[in-house]
């Protein structure tokens, strides 16, 4: 049962092989039995999950079936869920129970999904290893001495360990794709604006994008079908039609033009990953795709630009956590300044504080032009690089990460080394483009991710490409030893 995909489970529920209550209970039992090894969940919502499952079963009897009726999923702990803790992996929100549902949560609920719980994450989605969580690090199911990636590390590990068939994640600089790659699962970061941000606790508003984390491209298509669409509560959500993603999964790839950016296959890339990605490209060539080398000349500017702009937005977005209305408040503040300083000083972890300080500095009078404005210019150059290349090719393919999963603690004390983890992913967030990571092999016994990058709102194409690859290969079906 635990090796079935979301799509397969939907069929089995429809056939009446088991009920949603049975399925939900089985997953809840499995999480309770195994998650102590991974620490992938912050909150387990057993009671409400079983209620949702019961309701789904009852509705099914009446013939009322949604796309996700009775299917268990879990949410990254930055999506607001009414009645459940939404901590963002932070002490700051350890006591925060949202009174409302994020639009994405609401849509998934409406489609009949059952929320098993909330998954662990880097604090406020800031990190690439899931080590900055107030709730402790998540461990990679492929090797529990290694990190699952971040910031959606809990979601990735939970899906990889078969603790849940699908999760929501969010990606500001690679936070869906990088952990998906490191945990050997399928992750999709859609075009900026494709999925509403309402109720997703903001890290960097102009970068943040929610997306599905699943075991297959087919499952990602099913999830995205429900999650995507215009939301009147989010001014930046896209007023673009939502295609039938599953209808295009089997389109032929003959004549597909693939670009390989030379800057993404340069120094610093693990040879094993390079080899696996090249092998995957050859698989696409066998399907009739044409491959050519392309160039994204401003690639080396991505990390510096991102680490100005994202912290700048974060420094403002996180100002609301002030100990006044909700969240952590220090003991016995003597005055207002003390309340602010200690509530924020004690409530935030070090990586969050680092980014708030960097962002505050970048926006300060006298530095704004040199940092924020400059970085915005670079952002437009990077976007232009992609648009130029995407005129010439249909998609860009590249490794998702430069290295496979690294050891816990290995990069923890070196923020710059940690930031380099996202070198191949965060350019897409700067450009607002969609990208996927799918498993395409192993290096040192650890999963390798292939990144597929497309034009704006080309999710159907990306899912099609990923699905065809998954029909031809079985990397996405590999599971960690012992599971």
């Amino acid at each position, binding site marked *: 049962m635990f090796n079935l995909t979301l799509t397969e489970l939907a069929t089995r529920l429809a056939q009446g092989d088991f009920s949603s209550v049975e399925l939900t209970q089985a997953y809840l039992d499995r999480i309770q039995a195994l998650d102590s090894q991974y620490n992938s969940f912050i909150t387990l919502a057993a009671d409400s999950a079983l209620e949702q499952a019961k309701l789904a079963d009852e509705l099914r009897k009446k013939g009322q079936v949604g796309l996700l009726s009775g299917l268990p999923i879990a949410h990254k702990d930055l999506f607001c869920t009414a009645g459940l803790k939404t901590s963002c992996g932070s002490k700051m929100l350890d006591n925060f129970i949202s009174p409302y549902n994020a639009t994405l949560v609401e849509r998934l609920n409406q489609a009949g999904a059952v929320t098993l719980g909330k998954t662990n994450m880097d604090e406020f989605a800031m990190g690439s290893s899931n080590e900055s969580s107030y709730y402790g690090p998540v461990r990679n199911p492929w090797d529990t001495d290694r990190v699952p990636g971040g910031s959606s590390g809990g979601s990735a590990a939970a899906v990889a360990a078969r603790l849940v068939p699908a999760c929501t994640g969010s990606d500001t600089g690679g936070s869906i794709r990088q952990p998906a790659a490191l945990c050997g699962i399928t992750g999709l970061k859609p075009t900026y604006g494709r999925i509403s941000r309402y109720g997703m606790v903001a890290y960097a508003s102009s970068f943040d994008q929610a997306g599905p984390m699943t075991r297959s491209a087919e499952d990602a298509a099913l999830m995205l079908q429900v999650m995507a669409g215009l939301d009147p509560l989010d001014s930046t959500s896209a007023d673009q039609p939502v295609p039938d993603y599953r209808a295009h999964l089997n389109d032929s790839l003959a004549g597909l033009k693939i670009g390989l950016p030379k800057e993404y296959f340069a120094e610093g890339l693990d040879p094993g990953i390079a080899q696996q990605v090249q092998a995957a490209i050859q698989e696409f060539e066998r399907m009739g795709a044409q491959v050519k080398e392309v160039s994204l000349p401003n690639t080396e500017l991505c990390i510096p630009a991102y680490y100005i702009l994202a912290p700048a937005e974060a420094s403002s977005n996180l100002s*609301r956590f002030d100990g006044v209305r909700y969240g952590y408040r220090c003991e016995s503040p003597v005055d207002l300044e003390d309340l602010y300083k200690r509530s924020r000083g004690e409530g935030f972890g070090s990586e969050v504080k680092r980014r708030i300080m960097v962002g505050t500095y970048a926006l300060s009078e006298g530095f704004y032009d040199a940092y924020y404005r400059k970085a915005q210019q670079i952002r437009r150059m990077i976007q232009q690089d992609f648009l130029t290349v995407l005129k010439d090719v249909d998609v860009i393919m590249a490794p998702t990460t430069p290295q496979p999963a690294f050891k816990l603690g290995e990069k923890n004390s070196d923020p710059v080394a940690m930031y380099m983890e996202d070198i191949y992913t965060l350019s897409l967030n700067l450009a607002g483009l969609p990208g996927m990571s799918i498993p395409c092999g192993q290096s040192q016994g650890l999963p390798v991710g292939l990144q597929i990058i497309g034009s704006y709102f080309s999710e159907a194409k990306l899912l099609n490409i990923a699905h065809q690859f998954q029909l031809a290969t079985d990397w996405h079906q590999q599971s960690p030893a012992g599971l």
Partner: protein
Amino acid sequence: MEWETVIGLEIHAQLSTRTKIFSGASTAFGAEPNTQACAIDLALPGTLPVVNENALRMAVMFGLAVNAEIGKRSVFDRKNYFYPDLPKGYQTTQLAEPIVGAGYIDITLDDGETRRVRIHHAHLEEDAGKSLHEDFHGMSGIDLNRAGTPLIEIVSEPDMRSAKEASAYARKIHAIITTLGICDGNMAEGSMRCDCNVSVRPKGSPTLGTRTELKNINSFRFIERAIETEVARQIDLIEDGGRVIQETRLYDPDKNETRSMRSKEEANDYRYFPCPDLLPVIIDDSYIADIQKSLPELPDARKQRFIDEYQLSEYDAGVLSTYRPQADYFESVAKHTQDAKLSANWITGELAKHLNQHDIDITACPVSTEQLSGLLLRIQDETLTGKIAKTVFEVMWNDGGSADEIIEAKGLKQVTDSAAIEAIVDQVIASCTAQVEQYIAAEPDKRGKMLGFFMGQVMKLSQGKANPGQVQGLMKQKLDALT
């Protein structure tokens, strides 16, 4: 040395939208604390703003009314600072690209001269909540009902040269925004607040002196007094060899003094940057043209029409066109009575006196236009003397009723029966022998003045009801017959 005063005003006007600028919560004044603050106003994690289209529309109306360029593209920025009644830790406002660009208005001074005051720009922003420092035993209470109320901030150029000009400018802005119906103009409730930037310089000097900012002044009278007080303070300071410091000062109307709130050195670095949650507002020409067509008649145009159409004096036309409800009231009465001068006299006289005394806005006036018109018609047809009309008005104000009902009930009808009047005249002449003898003995050209005494006696005996014209004629005729 002769000094010149330089004044610029920043006026904050609350827009009369039903809901807030970025949320659907009500903007009504006076509700129980925190009952009109929704998740967005409370800045709960994950919430996002959506611009209230009506606020944009009102800002465009204002721009058109002050001959300003409308920003075809305007951008909301974040102004970052911590304060407990600022829930997000930033105020959403407009800095570099405001919705209303440069414009101007003409103000008329007491000597009849007009002066043009340029408007630098006007921008949209959200109001903060309120901090309540009383009743909480050393703590502060926060009321977020006002948080998110739409404001338009109207920034003038430093074009005013006296306190009188500043208050004339503020009155004119008040007249425009109330005429447009975009602000209720209630200064006591804070719907319109004024910051005055004041500096002095030696007359003829081309450079500006150091300015101070007088914050949050909420009446026209206080604008004048605050500026006068501050100008005197600055001149004294400089003449004593001191130096004006750029700072924010508070005007205390009880002590009629200004005192320092904070200096520039202590000022925040607001770290403005474009709000990534809101897209730039794009306004096209047809939208502007539609609003232009729907604009009501503005105070200047209405004043001119009052002069042309009703032959009002410049002064009366100015007074009556300033406040739209009053202007509407006047026009309604003038149309009923077909006597604009009489209507104007009563509305600027007796009615205004009563409204002032009872501190009632004309929109809540207990005497309707029908009632007042009915009263004036009875003056026109000589049913009432002017004096008795005031008595009828008093009854109307206190107890209601039409003029005819009151005249009937109180027997206040004017006496025009010449026999009855002659009887009273004879009675007075018979009883006031000493005064009659003085009259006879007086020089003929002095007698006119003496007639007043006899008139008064007749009116007294008739309880004011005798027709004064008839009394005067008959009395003069009878007395002159005795000489």
